């Protein structure tokens, strides 16, 4: 038995869209503590690790752990039917997921679930030397600016600077953010480091989260 209710559908929309950018089918693990998802894209380039605690919901009931498998295209299509002012509630029912939207009237969808994955995705063991927190919308804009000329972004974290660079057939782009920049919430660099990422992967995920997220950490 699982029931989760949220004040607005916006987080659900953002999370569902973000997950749908990396997998076609997702398995959510629900425990009394909250709702979890971890999955990688088929090329093993991007991973989403979601931990959504029960305290984030208006109502959350889970008597025993349950796995919910869903086709993300279908899930996104249904959740997008919610208006911003709707309350949204999810409930497992006989192998399906009952999705209810409440506002001036009640709207219900029954989504047929798929067989959940039995194996779970492990977390990669990464030694990270820098942590930068930046506003999500700013990060999206910065990446968009780089994408004008490049397909990849090279991020350099220095003691008091964050540098984003890209190069392509038409030319190069370089953006420098000083530590004092108001979009840069924090920058903690143990050791200066450089990494290059595919812009399409980064932007797909970040763009879907800008509506609900204030901060983004590296």
């Amino acid at each position, binding site marked *: 038995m699982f029931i989760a209710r949220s004040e607005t559908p916006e987080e659900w929309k953002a999370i569902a869209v973000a997950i749908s950018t990396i997998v*076609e089918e997702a398995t959510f693990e629900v425990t009394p503590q909250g709702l979890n998802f971890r999955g990688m*894209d*088929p090329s093993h380039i991007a991973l989403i690790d979601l931990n959504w605690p029960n305290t984030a919901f208006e109502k959350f009931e889970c008597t025993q752990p349950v796995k919910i498998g869903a086709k993300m295209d279908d899930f996104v299509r249904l959740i997008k039917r919610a208006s911003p002012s709707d309350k949204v509630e999810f409930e497992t029912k006989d192998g399906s997921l009952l999705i209810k939207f409440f506002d001036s009237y009640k709207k219900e969808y029954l989504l047929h679930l798929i067989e959940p994955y039995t194996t779970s995705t492990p977390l990669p063991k990464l030694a990270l030397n820098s942590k930068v927190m930046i506003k999500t919308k700013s990060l999206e804009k910065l990446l968009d600016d780089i994408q004008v000329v490049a397909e990849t972004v090279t991020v350099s974290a220095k003691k008091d600077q964050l540098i984003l660079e890209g190069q392509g057939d038409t030319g190069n782009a370089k953006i420098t953010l000083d530590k004092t920049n108001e979009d840069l919430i924090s920058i903690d660099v143990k050791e200066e480091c450089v990494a290059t990422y595919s812009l399409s992967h980064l932007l797909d995920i970040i763009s879907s989260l800008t509506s609900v997220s204030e901060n983004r950490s590296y």
Partner: protein
Amino acid sequence: MSTLHDIVSEEIINEFNASSISIKSKFSSICIYCRGGRKLCGKAVCPITLKAISMVKVSKPISSNYVSGSSPPSVFVGRYGYPKVAVGPMVPPILGDTVIMDLPEKWIGTPLEQIIDYRYSLLRGKVDIKVTEVRTVNRFLDTLHELAMSSRPADSEVEFTKRPIGTIYLDDHSQPFGPSAPIKSFRLQSTHSDRSIEKLYYDTDLLAQEAVLELYRSGVEVSRIQRAFSVGMFGLKKNRRLVPTRWSITAVDSIISSEIIKRIKDYDTIDKFLLYRHTYMNNIFVALLLPEKWSYEWMEAWFPGTFWNQNLSEVDVGGDYESYGGRKTYPSIGGCYFSARLATAEALNKIRRQATALVLREIHPEFPLPLGVWFVRENIRRLFQQRPSTFEDLEQAFRGLSEALTVPLRKWIQKSEILKNHVFQRRLSNYFGSGD
């Protein structure tokens, strides 16, 4: 603009009424000095001469406004002026078994001159019709549907409003086909309808996509499906419309391959790297299948002196890619992307496996002119009929790939998403520790 006298031999001209053909050359500076003799453009056979020779062959029987012959069957829907387009039958001035003239599935192995002859022998009649007219009663379109449904060549008579005139463009965008003229009247003798197409034609409650897939599953050739699709014979009655031939080819390739890809995503991945190679008419086709989830890339390398690379001194490489989730935009490289994707998906479906497929084509200067996307589809089908070389790891596979191609691998890597992904992109799975 130069005239036919400038580019074909005197002997040919003597047999031919040159005033009915004009030749427009985008690269007139080369062609004027060459005139088909010096091969300044680098091709073994001058494309304009080839076109002109075919024109000569058909021009004699059509010195009047009237043609009688067996349509393979063949129809053509133009795209200029959309949504009002020029549509009509294609009829050669020959009676008998002409089915080969519009059945590209059977053209591999046929000499180039013969293929061109097929294309140019088909005289195109034109009537300007709004694409949605297909939903109403229209006798001309009904006759055209009857022709498109025919399983055998259909004896036809076409009366043109004026004598068909052929214009030859050196610009490669124009697909080769014969002279055309507006139709005054079009008569069709008895036809033999293909039952499977006929059934779907009369089913006005079935989506066009479903009709295409049903025909494909029942073994109807892709070119036949495309022909019927272009004249608006499938789909819900209220949605039916004429589809320009060029678009219909891509639509059918795309619909069928998308469906097969859905299926192959349920299969296990291949367990080794497989490398296929096939050469045909100065083209090299190579496919590298990697033991990973489905993704696909189609790339072409045009050598200097080929149609698409007239002025460059370097090989020009271009292509398009789709990840596991598929594409959301039309590939810039054009319809050949979907033709190659169809042949690739068919090959994987046959072995009931999925893979990441990198499919490459080198076009060498001796290849005189592009013949349409069928050339890609049928050659990629042939490619996957070859016995593949197998490799255990990526490094060996790359070495094999490099040996199979003449364009250096670094040039492909610069443009290829799949190659870049494997050369430069690290995988998260590389960082999984044991027991995690």
